[in-house]
């Protein structure tokens, strides 16, 4: 059992009070698993991704635990968390293009970073990993501004996985890319796992069809809570949560064409405010099958092998 998250709550502090961006999530990620974490903006997916490695200044760990390979991650304690970062948990940030110090050559920066973490780095190993992502070793002698955006992103991928972390969080790494680059980046993520450089991975994304291509399981979040988690194939073909269903049916797949009488439609309404969310199921207001019981929060229960849903009607 690689990662176990139990009832995690992380709030944002704002002027008007706490924004309950992550309000009690419980799940596990197995060794070797790539889990896609999908959701729309405001769903809490990025908050979840960030809170597993570094809470930013406004985020506050309110409750719940995170366990990685049997050790509890002190995610609310920035200083104690340092021991885990990079070695055990690592991240490919969304801002990969600007993640490298502009005034240091890549090779020197990597060497200084490793030295600062007390790790000796074999040059041969570094080069092997550059090869793996298709970079020549000359990039080590370059400044970031001399590399293209995609090269920088691959450099970041190599750096983040240098210490073979148990868990890698890839935060919206494909969202700013063209389709062909998306495919290549997704392929590289798979390679990192297959080559054993990372044990398991959480791929945070807003694009279910993309994450379906590489993920073993997909977890869908809505308004700070989990909606559904299932093996990728199951989630896409047999979604049980009404939100997941509507989301998937709103995707214009290749080959689907607009027709006057049978056009696709989105989900009406908008997510509830997280500053003071209503009780019960948070999807209730937009849900076509909501009923009285939805005023009570549905538990996130397993209804099939590896398939959990938070909906009272999921069993039907």
């Amino acid at each position, binding site marked *: 059992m690689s990662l176990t998250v139990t009832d995690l709550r992380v709030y944002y502090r704002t002027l008007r009070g706490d924004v309950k961006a992550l309000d009690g999530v419980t799940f596990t990620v197995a060794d070797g698993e790539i889990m896609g974490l999908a959701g729309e903006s405001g769903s809490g997916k990025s908050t979840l991704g960030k809170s597993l490695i570094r809470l930013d200044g406004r985020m506050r760990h309110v409750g719940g635990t995170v366990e990685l390979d049997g050790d509890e991650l002190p995610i609310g304690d920035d200083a104690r968390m*340092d021991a885990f970062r990079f*070695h055990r948990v690592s991240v490919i940030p969304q801002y990969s293009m*600007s993640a490298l110090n*502009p005034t240091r050559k890549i090779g020197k920066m990597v060497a200084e*970073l490793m030295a600062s973490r007390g790790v000796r780095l074999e040059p041969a190993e570094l080069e092997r990993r550059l090869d793996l992502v298709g970079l020549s070793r000359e990039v080590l002698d370059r400044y970031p501004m001399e590399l293209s955006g995609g090269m920088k992103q691959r450099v970041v991928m190599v750096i983040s996985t240098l210490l073979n972390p148990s868990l890698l969080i890839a935060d919206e790494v494909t969202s700013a890319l063209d389709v062909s680059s998306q495919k290549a980046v997704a392929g590289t993520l798979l390679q990192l796992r297959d080559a054993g450089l990372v044990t398991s991975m959480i791929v945070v994304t807003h694009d279910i069809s993309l994450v379906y291509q590489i993920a073993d399981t997909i977890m869908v979040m809505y308004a700070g809570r989990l909606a559904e988690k299932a093996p990728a194939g199951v989630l896409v073909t047999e979604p049980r949560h009404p939100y997941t269903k509507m989301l998937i049916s709103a995707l214009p797949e290749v080959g689907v064409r607009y027709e006057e009488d049978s056009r696709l439609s989105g989900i009406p309404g908008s997510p509830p405010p997280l500053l003071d969310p209503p009780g019960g199921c948070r999807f209730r207001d937009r849900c076509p099958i909501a009923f009285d019981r939805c005023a009570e929060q549905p538990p996130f229960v397993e209804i099939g092998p590896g398939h959990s849903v938070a909906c009272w009607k999921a069993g039907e």
Partner: protein
Amino acid sequence: MRRYFGRKLLIYGLTFFVAVTINWLIPRFMPGDPVQSLIARANIAQPEVVEAMRVRYEGLFGFDMPIWQQYFNFWGALLDGDLGVSIWLFPTPVADVITRAVPYTLGLLIPAILLSWVAGNRFGAFAARRKWLDNTALPIGYVLTATPYMWLAILLAWALGIIAGIFPVAGAYSYAMQPGWSWEFIGSLLQHWFLPFASLFLVAFGGWAIGMRNMIIYELEADYVNYLRALGAPGRLIRRYAFRNAILPQITGLALQLGVLVAGALVTEIVFSYPGLGNLILQAIQNQDFFLLQGTFLFIVMGVLIANFVIDIVYVLVDPRTRAGMGGAS
């Protein structure tokens, strides 16, 4: 690279051109007969001085000539190194008067600029580290940088010179001494040098410290810092990187501040009757010695331009991005 420096040199050339033109233009804007009124205002008794002034002004202005000819004559005299004769120290050539004063000004300015820059940046970066330090150091920095140079000079002279009696408050060396290379004389030089230096240093120090503190705070918000933090890099490494990146705009800032620093040195010299360019300017103004004033002005502009160019070169040497960008790699 050549293109970059070519551009800079063009700007400096144009600036010099503008400075000379200002020099030529301003007396002509004066109402009435400029030569007559300048001579009248100079209020000089000796007839030979009045005559010398008249000859020079008429030669320079040559009002009977076409205007472009007047302008070219002005440049011609300048390029010959002929800045005229000082009225105040008649008949010493202006160039000689300036040459005598320059070492004192440079002796004050260069150490004050370099030391305040280095110390201010270090201190600013240090202050940005801790909240309480930031909150105490910052107001001091603001008070220092808001202080008029001459006022701090007066305060120091009064407190350390007059009241405490530690330092002399006038001149560059004791009047009782003959300039020479004796230890005693050098000691006297240093003693007289210290207060003007200290007041220049302190005001500039405040400015650099605040600038650096602000830069560092912005740098610490940068993506590369976030990434390093996410990888658990120690604060030491992060601060080192942030400092290195923040120092670059501070180099540009140094170029921008040169004019202000020079002006500060001038008024500080006046407070301490320090025999540099500032004192020359004061004397020139009080004695209506316009040749000396113009000469000093041109000299200072030249100095600032050269210093700017030196800073440009340093910047290119220090910032890898400019080198990479100019090497034609793209």
